[in-house]
């Protein structure tokens, strides 16, 4: 492996270019016409324009990306997160072109991408799952299962994931309507109208385990990330380790994640997501077959560069650390700085960043593709920076995050920086006592 095409944009493309450079790999950026001035384009060794602004015609355009790969003579493709990262057909198309896809096999992506099937694989591997239907369900099967497990329930799109394609039903009457709407939406959004049903767990936390596997069959976990602070099922603040896990639960959860990864013959970086209920019992939700946005908190507490691992594993090397060498060191927090206006219900706020001063100093890392004079385009994700702070313990990580947020100065667009400054002072956040519904409850009580 000598030359890598980065099939992404924004901070993760810049992150990947950094890892490639450390490994002595040449890089090719691809970009839409809206991203000509983007940082990943400027930082890569070569850049190829692959189409108009709309992702469908550029970052999701498989043929244009493969053509860029042929033209530049790369031997590998790094997918990042979002766009084509969990698209099994894209991974297979890369393989057909003799390109190394920096990620798991198309078969593993497919097995975990069908969220109903992933549940079945998990259950067969002895991983606890949330009570619900066995795979995709008809209306009749869903009604029967819901009567047995009790309401409220969640109807989820089998082809969904990442919080998309989910609807709740409180009773039998609601369920019939919700199933019909969820199936129609899933068909339109994902081209697959299959849905399945799970019990809605109230007051649970979202905790996920990072795993790394290689082609030699080595498989390790890198502990967990706590991601319960969400708004509309999108994460806003993540931390490692989870303040809610004791040592025994941590070990049990990591063991379950490894069993699932082994059953899926998993290679490269992946994340197994769980819900942790108030009694400390955990159940599998889904597996993400890619790098996660929030991967830096794991890097900060383990010292392992996950993107570098992804690249070296894809090149045929074993995972660079043994399980017994991995230890949790301190605590880390990531806050997502989005181009959104927290004063106006998080309305997207694209436009030119007229001034930017990023925080620095001990324990502070900022992953971003933004710069003063950069115009945030309206076409893509609103994430513009990830502020990640590390401390010897959670209290120090919190203090550093708060201090770094004070230093964070950005002008020209609205961002979530003021929201995070307030959030860091929240008693429940300070105490680490929050669940996935916490931010929604809080915004209601603030109003």
């Amino acid at each position, binding site marked *: 492996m000598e030359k890598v095409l980065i099939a992404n944009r924004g901070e993760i493309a810049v992150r990947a270019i950094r890892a490639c450079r450390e490994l002595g790999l040449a890089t090719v950026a691809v970009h839409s016409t809206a991203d000509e001035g983007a940082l990943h384009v400027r930082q890569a060794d070569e850049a190829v324009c692959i189409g108009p*602004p709309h992702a469908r015609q550029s970052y999701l355009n498989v043929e244009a990306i493969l053509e860029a790969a042929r033209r530049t003579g790369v031997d590998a493709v790094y997918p990042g997160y979002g766009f084509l990262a969990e698209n099994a057909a894209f991974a297979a198309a890369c393989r057909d072109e003799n390109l190394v896809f920096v990620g798991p096999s198309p078969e593993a992506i497919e097995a975990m991408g069908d969220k109903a099937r992933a549940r079945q694989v998990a259950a067969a591997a002895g991983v606890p799952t949330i009570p619900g239907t066995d795979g995709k369900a008809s209306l009749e099967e869903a009604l029967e299962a819901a009567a047995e497990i009790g309401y409220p329930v969640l109807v989820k799109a089998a082809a969904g994931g990442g919080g998309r394609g989910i609807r709740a039903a409180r009773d039998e009457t609601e369920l019939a309507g919700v199933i019909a709407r969820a199936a*129609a939406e899933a068909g*339109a959004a994902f081209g697959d109208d299959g849905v399945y049903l799970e019990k809605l767990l109230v007051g649970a936390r979202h905790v996920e385990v990072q795993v790394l596997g290689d082609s030699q069959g080595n498989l390790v976990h890198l502990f967990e990330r706590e991601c319960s602070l969400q708004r509309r099922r999108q994460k806003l603040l993540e931390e490692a380790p989870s303040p809610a896990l004791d040592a025994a639960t941590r070990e049990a959860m990591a063991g379950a994640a490894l069993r699932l990864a082994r059953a899926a013959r998993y290679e490269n970086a992946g994340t197994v997501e769980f819900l942790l209920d108030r009694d400390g019992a955990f159940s599998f939700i889904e597996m993400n077959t890619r790098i996660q946005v929030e991967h830096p908190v794991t890097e900060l507490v383990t010292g392992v560069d996950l993107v570098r691992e992804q690249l070296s594993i894809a090149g045929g090397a074993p995972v660079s650390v043994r399980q017994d060498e991995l230890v949790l060191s301190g605590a880390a927090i990531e806050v997502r700085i989005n181009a959104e206006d927290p004063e106006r219900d998080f309305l*997207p706020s*694209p436009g030119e960043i007229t001034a930017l001063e990023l925080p620095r100093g001990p324990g502070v890392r900022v992953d971003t593709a933004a710069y003063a004079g950069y115009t945030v385009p*309206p*076409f*893509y*994700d*609103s994430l513009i920076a990830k502020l990640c702070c590390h401390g010897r313990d959670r209290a120090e990580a919190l203090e550093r995050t708060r201090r770094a947020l004070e230093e964070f100065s950005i002008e020209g667009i609205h961002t979530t920086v003021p929201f995070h400054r307030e959030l860091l002072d929240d008693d429940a956040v300070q105490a680490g006592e929050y669940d996935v519904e916490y931010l929604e409850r809080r915004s209601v009580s603030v109003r």
Partner: protein
Amino acid sequence: MPETIKSPLPGTFYRRPDPTADPYVSEGDQVQAGDVVGLVEIMKSFHEIHADAGGRIARFLVENEDLVDAGQDIIELGG
């Protein structure tokens, strides 16, 4: 100057709630203030465009999936 309905946000303009549905409104339709007349997609999120006054839709000034700016006229209202 004829009365118009503007997009409150920059982004991609859509006439339908989803690709398989009927358009929210068509030329010749009568709308009331507050009616949804289209969607604008910005940063992967969808926002409804509401009529700020009642009237009859004379014509669309942009096509489905066109890029629009904040404050751009998208519908012309007529008598």
